[in-house]
């Protein structure tokens, strides 16, 4: 369970960018979360309501855009969802690479000025 440090980090990032923009309030926070990136879940919103109290971001809504994991075969370039054996469904190749699903960042914030 590391939702708390993750939530604190999201808050720091949001407040920094809100202050730089001269915002008076943060309304929404848009987060991109790859399927493979983190074990945190929507309970981040629960922590948020506690730790963002009395800040510019109190009451802000967190939006999570989830990015599915994707692998690519290094032999034939086929892209596919990771399967149980990590083998290319097209050519059977075992040389595969993860090309999506590791994202974990704050994409944007919506603020009032």
């Amino acid at each position: 369970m590391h939702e708390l440090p993750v939530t604190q980090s999201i808050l720091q990032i949001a407040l920094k960018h809100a202050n730089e923009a001269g915002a008076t309030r943060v309304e929404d926070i848009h987060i991109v979360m790859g399927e493979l990136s983190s074990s945190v879940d929507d309970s981040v919103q629960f922590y948020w309501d506690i730790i963002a109290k009395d800040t510019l971001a109190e009451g802000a809504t967190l939006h999570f855009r989830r990015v599915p994991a994707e692998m690519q075969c290094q032999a034939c370039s086929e892209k596919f969802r990771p399967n149980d054996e990590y083998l290319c469904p097209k050519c059977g190749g075992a040389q595969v690479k993860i090309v999506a699903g590791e994202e974990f960042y704050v994409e944007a914030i919506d603020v009032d000025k």
Partner: protein
Amino acid sequence: MTERIPVVENILSANDRLAEENRARIESAGVFSINLMASPGAGKTSLIEKTLPPLKDKLRVAVVDGDIATSLDADRAAAAGAQASIQVNTGGECHLDAVMLHGALNQLDLKQFDLLMVENVGNLVCPAEFRLGTHKSVLIASVPEGADKPYKYPGMYRGVDALIINKIDLLPYIDFDMDFFRRGVEALNPGVITFPVSCRTGEGMDAWINWLIENTK
């Protein structure tokens, strides 16, 4: 009026920055450092216990032990010959992070050591996400855990620099499909160096210890 501000900042970037600071401190003291990760019971502390005696008179070793509670592991490392052992109790957190290692480094005179071994909290998920600033990440997989672990915990298997396969003395007694295991490892982390060992019998330990010594010098 509501306005959208583009951010695009990694959520764990604060941890990453502190990890870089840790790395700079460790490097300036001329110390080689590893982050030892594994599931509970895979043999992290046993590996440290078996690694320390052959390093005696060769390398001065500090051990940092992360656990949710107790100092049992740090006590075992000290008993096995670590010149210093620091226990970090995470108080419920599932992993060590750069802040916790930073605190442990404050308790060590790094110049007194050649090798720093950090034993992370037993967990195959969270420790992979929090960089500490160590030079190499080492994962211990033990064969009774099953051959499917690379497929179930890809984040952990992808990010490591060395893989120890522990408890190989049990292979005759259990169903462990080594080919399936190795194929998963190879897909996630091509060419990663592996050390099949048994901490119980000592089999394979020489190669691992030589790797440590080579990297430390």
